[in-house]
């Protein structure tokens, strides 16, 4: 069992659902990103994914897409993002994950990038455009560095492929709640149960569920169904509408 998985299981023994939140590093600014992380950790989130912005984020919807582009326009670079990660992992004890697209790893050299993530104190990575079939260079590098590759299940994934993906996954599995990209509305219904049952059969790892989780009602619905609720675009939307100061109360209100 990886360190990340152990920590998730320990936290899970005290909480019936864990919270994972998301930021785009450097959006709306590096200073604000740090304030947001501090507020989220103080509000009790159990783990966080920090997205290094990419110019072509094909799996992201309008909210995260715009944040990626604004962060890049404001001068966010891979180097500054990893420095930021180092700062927050030293400051806070919860596990932090890197989220980004494969090109940033490939361009820097996959093994070198993974080593830099490790040096920054990150616990794992989510690379949404890297299916296990293409991860021949990434997986051994992650294993060597002791970082967990977080893979993704989707409702359209057949059972056999769920098992195939599970074989490469460590830490936990990120289940996408529905079709489409991030940040759009999801109707949480009984249909989800059948999908999550398929996910449970495919892996013994903890399950996280994201895409469209935006309020306490959604998080409540997921209690007893998954281990981790992932709130992504909703906090970005909140920051856009009401500013960084609103983050703490919002996150505390989720659970």
């Amino acid at each position: 069992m990886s360190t990340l998985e152990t920590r998730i299981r320990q936290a899970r023994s005290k909480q019936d659902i864990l919270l994972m939140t998301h930021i785009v590093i450097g959006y709306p600014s590096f200073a604000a990103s740090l304030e947001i992380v501090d507020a989220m950790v103080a509000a009790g989130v159990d783990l966080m994914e920090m997205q290094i912005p990419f110019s072509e984020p094909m799996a992201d919807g309008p909210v995260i897409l715009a944040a990626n582009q604004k962060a890049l326009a404001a001068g966010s670079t891979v180097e500054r993002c990893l420095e930021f990660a180092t700062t927050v992992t030293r400051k806070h004890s919860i596990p932090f994950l890197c989220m980004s697209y494969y090109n940033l790893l490939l361009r820097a050299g996959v093994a070198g990038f993974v080593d830099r993530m490790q040096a920054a104190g990150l616990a794992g990575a989510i690379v949404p455009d890297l299916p296990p079939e293409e991860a021949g260079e990434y997986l051994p590098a992650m294993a060597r560095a002791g970082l967990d590759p977080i893979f993704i299940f989707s409702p359209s994934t057949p059972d056999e492929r769920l098992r195939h993906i599970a074989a490469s996954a460590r830490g936990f599995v990120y289940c996408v709640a529905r079709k489409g990209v991030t940040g759009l509305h999801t109707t949480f219904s009984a249909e989800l149960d059948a999908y999550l049952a398929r996910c449970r059969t495919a892996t013994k790892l903890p399950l996280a569920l994201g895409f469209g989780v935006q309020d306490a009602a959604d998080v409540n619905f997921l209690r007893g169904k998954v281990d981790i609720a992932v709130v992504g675009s909703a906090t970005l939307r909140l920051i856009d509408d009401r500013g960084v100061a609103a983050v703490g109360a919002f996150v505390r209100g989720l659970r």
Partner: protein
Amino acid sequence: MTSPLSPDQPRGYYGKFGGAYLPEILVATFRELETAFAAAQADPAFWREYETLMGEYSCRPTPLTFAENLTRDFGGARIFVKREDLNHTGAHKANNVMGQGLLVRRMGKKRVIAETGAGQHGVATATMAAKFGFECTIYMGEVDVERQRPNVFWMERLGARVVPVKDGSRTLKDAINEAFRDWAANMDSTHYVLGTACGPHPFPTMVTYFQSIIGQELRKQVVERTGRLPRRIYACVGGGSNALGVFSAFLDDTAVELVGVEAGGRGLPTHRHAARLASQDASIGVAQGYRTYFLQNSDGQMLETHSVAAGLDYIGVSPILAHLRDTGRVRFESATDAEVVAALALAVRREGLIPALESAHAFAQACKEAPGLPPDDVIVINQSGRGDKDIFTVADAFGDPAWEDFIRRKAASYERKP
């Protein structure tokens, strides 16, 4: 018929290029497409159905025109022009779109989406959708909507919904991202008609398969007309589909030199261009679901590209062409905006041909090289599209005062309306 250019490696790889770097939600859809495409290739009736459709709807086989005056002017190789501009909707785009339309019908889907840069692929897709009775949405960068309004007009008349994409550089690459986002939400009802030989497997193979009709015809025509194979074939390269289409029938004929011409924009030293394979500015990356040479910075962020021809103004290039560059089978050159406009003027005045600005890149390179070849040699330029769509850009390039007056008067006539 099977594809003349099938991947030489598993998972859709050509050498080290290609693959399918997909968000998990789309993986099952790509498997479904791969299966449907394989079944179509295995069915001899499918290619016949395709050829018949293209003959009856899109003027195929397109003619091979001898450019007698240009040949005399340059005093070198005999210059022939393959007339893809005579396809219905005015470009080779129709070949791919009608082929994918037949495939969509076999798959039983009712809605098609597409990206478009210059608007040619969007118009072709909207046309196909009108003919086959599909619902149609076209994604087009806001910048391109501005510079290609006439195509937007026709897409809407054809019944398509045109969505201006306001993200990123607001051009072709952003339209592609947006089309993938739509597909990720609507794949049960929808097929994404990708317009060029790029993107995740099986698109590069599939688009090349349909475009290979150009090369098949050309090979037969050129041998019948001249009794020999061409010494060189010139094609412009944006995503690479017209080039792969015309090159595909000659890959094993090593005496036939294949020349891909990219957008040199303001000139390679200015770095304001879209030359992925002819410049030293591109590097291997993964974006939009596939691995190829991209114009990107040292972090892996994509750069802004530039070309007078919207259809060549793109960050990536077909993985098949990237491989054919690395193996040395295709030579890559670039033509600057200025060279392209000059070549266009020449083709218009000397041959009465009106190539699209994209296709004029191939003319520009052929004009540079023709005088150095002996008169026995035959060279072929693939005129991938017609230039009517470029009237605003070309009129600006030529600085035609009468045209400007006409536009002013036309604009004023709209001002007066209540």
